[in-house]
């Protein structure tokens, strides 16, 4: 029995060694995972992907965006990490993101967007967490009111809500 357990431990160790050799380690989520970033990422904490709980994302530098949206009335205040910060955190190396929502709705966004604009993974709207019913837990928010070109159908489509998966491609 003991022999068997130590064998499993050894095997797990070998796997983690192998994993570490390909990817850098990052902090593990303590609570429910709300976002998984996979694909061309160098930093992971789970099998091939970087899993984030709310606290991990809230712990990153926060950016506030005050803007109108096509789906709300009036100006809203959004808060969350810059998408480019998150991508840097996991050392993403790709030209596009495949952003996927809870209901499997997916959209492809070029990573260049996040160099050009301070788009965020919004975690709070008007200081409050967003429930699934309110398009939470994560909504990609562009600083729409600051750039005229963002006030278009093309960009509106990128405002994916109920986001829970990103695949870097």
């Amino acid at each position, binding site marked *: 029995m003991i022999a068997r357990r130590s064998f499993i431990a050894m095997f797990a160790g070998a796997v983690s060694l192998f994993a570490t050799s390909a990817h850098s380690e990052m902090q593990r989520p303590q609570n429910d995972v709300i976002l998984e970033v996979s694909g061309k990422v160098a930093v992971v904490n789970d099998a091939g992907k970087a899993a984030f709980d709310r606290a991990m994302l809230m712990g990153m530098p926060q950016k506030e965006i005050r803007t109108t949206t096509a789906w709300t009335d009036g100006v809203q205040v959004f808060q969350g990490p810059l998408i480019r910060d998150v991508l840097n955190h996991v050392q993403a190396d790709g030209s596009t993101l495949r952003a996927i929502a809870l209901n499997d709705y997916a959209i492809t966004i070029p990573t260049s967007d996040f160099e050009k604009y301070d788009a965020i993974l919004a975690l709070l709207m008007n200081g409050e967490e967003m429930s699934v*019913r309110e398009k939470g837990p994560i909504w990609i928010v562009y600083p729409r009111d600051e750039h005229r070109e963002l006030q278009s159908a093309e960009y509106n*489509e990128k405002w994916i809500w*109920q986001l829970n998966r990103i695949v870097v491609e």
Partner: protein
Amino acid sequence: MTASLRKSILALIVLAFAVSLGFGFKHVTTVDETLESRLAENAVWAGAQLQFELGRFRESLYDLANNDRNASPKETSKRFDILWSRVQIFREGDLAELVTVSGMKPIVDNIQSQIEEIDSIIADDGFKTRAQPETIRRILDTGQSINRLSQELTAGIMHGEHVRFVNYIRERQSAIHDVMISLVGLFLCGAAFTVSLVFSNRQANKATLAATSAEEAAVAARERVTDAIESMAEGFAVIDSVGRYVSANTIFRSFMNRFSGSAPTGDFFETTLETGFRDHVLLDPLGRPVNRIMDGLRCADGTGFEFVMDDENWVRIETRRTANGTMIVKLADVTDRKRWEIETENAKNTAIRNLEAQSRFLSMMSHEVRTPLNGVLGILQIIIDEPLSQAARHYVKTALNSAISLRTVIDDVLDASKIEANEMALRNEALSLANLSENVLDLMTPLAHKSGLSLTLTLDPNLPKSVTGDADRLRQILNNFVSNAIKFTEHGNVALSLDRLSKSDGRCLVRFSVTDTGIGIPAEKQADLFRAFKQIDSSYSRRFGGTGLGLAISKVLAEKMGGVVGFESTAGKGSRFWFDIPFEILSSEPWVKQAGPSGSRVLIDLSDRALADALSAQIKGFGMNVAVCDTSCPQSNGETDVILINDSPLDASTAIRPHMHLQVLHAENMLDDVTEAFDSRTRFLRYPIHPTTLMRELLAPRPPVPVKIEPARPIEESGSGPLRILLAEDCKTNQLVMQAFLKGITTDLVIAENGKLALEEARTNTFDLILMDVSMPEMDGIEATKKIREFSDIPVIGVTAHAFESALTSCLDAGMDRVLTKPLAKQDLYSTIKELLDESDRAAALAVTGTESC
């Protein structure tokens, strides 16, 4: 005008046009932008997403209800939250505005309140794996209604897109118009203002450029809407207020091409349809004129019109008018559904026709079989009264019994067909429940005796004296229950009892129950019991005979009387069948007069234990003190206040000295032989014992007198001479039967061969009564009666083999006083004659004093 002034004017003009042009340009771009942004999050897409999420939520809920492996309350909850968020898309931001513009706000509000309802259903404990099925059902139902609403929403928004598109085109045209005015203005300024002209030209080019880009946007918008319409599974078109197509999908256009045949489709929807009707490509199955169909379609209230095409396919056209006069047309091939509908309808009609044919056949059979049976039964009844050898009597009796069985079978089948044809009508006349049940007791006792069973009757002391109801039909149910009980009981007893269950406001509920000690009904056979043509086992059927209709008929009859039937049964132990009928009370007096409380003790000493118990129960019901002798009778203890009921005469060997003795006489005809009791205290109870007789003897004891029995005579006539009866009857056998029947009464019988002769007889001679056959050559009984009624109110008794209620009604309508159905029973004939003459002047002259055996 100086050069400088001219220059100034020129500059002003140029400036004015430039400003005007600028506005025109601005106008075009604004419209363009609005259009772009509105179409951005395509409302149709959002509607489809809503429906999609709704489907996934319901699927998940369904899985949850079915304990599917992949289902979890958490997953269902998530699905619901996503669904919730999809509804919110229509309630905020750009789409909310669009929803308001399209007039779809009430629908969105409705959807919101429905999801809130689901939310409140699950608010308490969320979704559960083992949720109550009705909760799930409620949620699924609500989901269904949301689904309908969201479809309406999508359609409405699509229409909204159209309206906006049309408005856009209009605005764009006015913008271009503004630009054109500017251009024309500038052109008029002429070559003289070269500089300004060049400048203007530049502006004009720019404006044309703007107009072109606006047009492109419009085309793009149109394409989007067209794509949405195109993706629909049905034909779909938008028709403007004058009837021209604004837009239509391929399916719709292909239908239009079908309708117009070789002719070009044209721009007008109605013209195409009219062409279709004119060339018989389209056919209205209801045969409405084309202009009326067009009116109906123009009405556009969502009514669907279904037409058949020349290739026998079906098409459904549905039109709906919107607020601004635009008409939405939906067109679908409904051939499969329609064929199925037609097949079902045909199958139904065939079934109805078969049923009707069966009904007609049975009604015919009723006549055809009953007429000869009348002959057989009548003649057998005559023969049995003739002096016969013992063997001959036995054969005739057997033949008579067989004929009676045959009549029962025919009556059952006829009743069943009457029920099927909804012809079963109930009479509502005064009846005595005590007498009715005693009749059944009398009728069934011989049958019970033959099987070695004892049949008893007990009546609840609270039964009212008289109620209203259909005595014949009640008797039929009772006979059926009792004869079944006898059939299925090999030894023991059958007990019939009537109990008043409740009473209020001049009404009472009476339970008739028949308890036996028979073979009982196995649990698995119980469900089929009251269904037509079912006998519990074909082996029983062979053993016990019968049509298997009796219980089914009884059930229908009882239910028609407002009652219920039921039973309890244990295989091998016996059964209890019962039915409860509500009656209107005519007389709430008790069914037997009670002189006063009797202090007498009643002692029952009968060899038939079941009978003793039944009598004991009956007497106890009246509060009297009863004892049943067990193995040995008690010795005399000097008691004198005792009433003894036994089946032997009082003599020295009787241990007890009662002050009254009721001796039960078992043999049927024994009473006739007993002219005098041996003991003056003795009175006789003839078997089967009627509760009314028993209780009358016990409760109103008359001074004991020797019993004198008169020989029974059917009808006693007084000195007023024989009854003059006219018999209208064409059939010789029936004439013979009637003559033999009427032998019991002294009559002066005149026979007429048909209605016409009967009418002549009735005109020229005086009769006390007419017996009128219904089916006769020359003139039938109904017409003859009508004619007789013109000059006489003489009692007329109709005699018919048509047992159907409708036939009876037409007899009574013609003026007949009573109608008897063939085969005739002598007893019925006598009692009917007596009843009728009782009503007329001859009443005093006649009295029925006895019964006769047939």
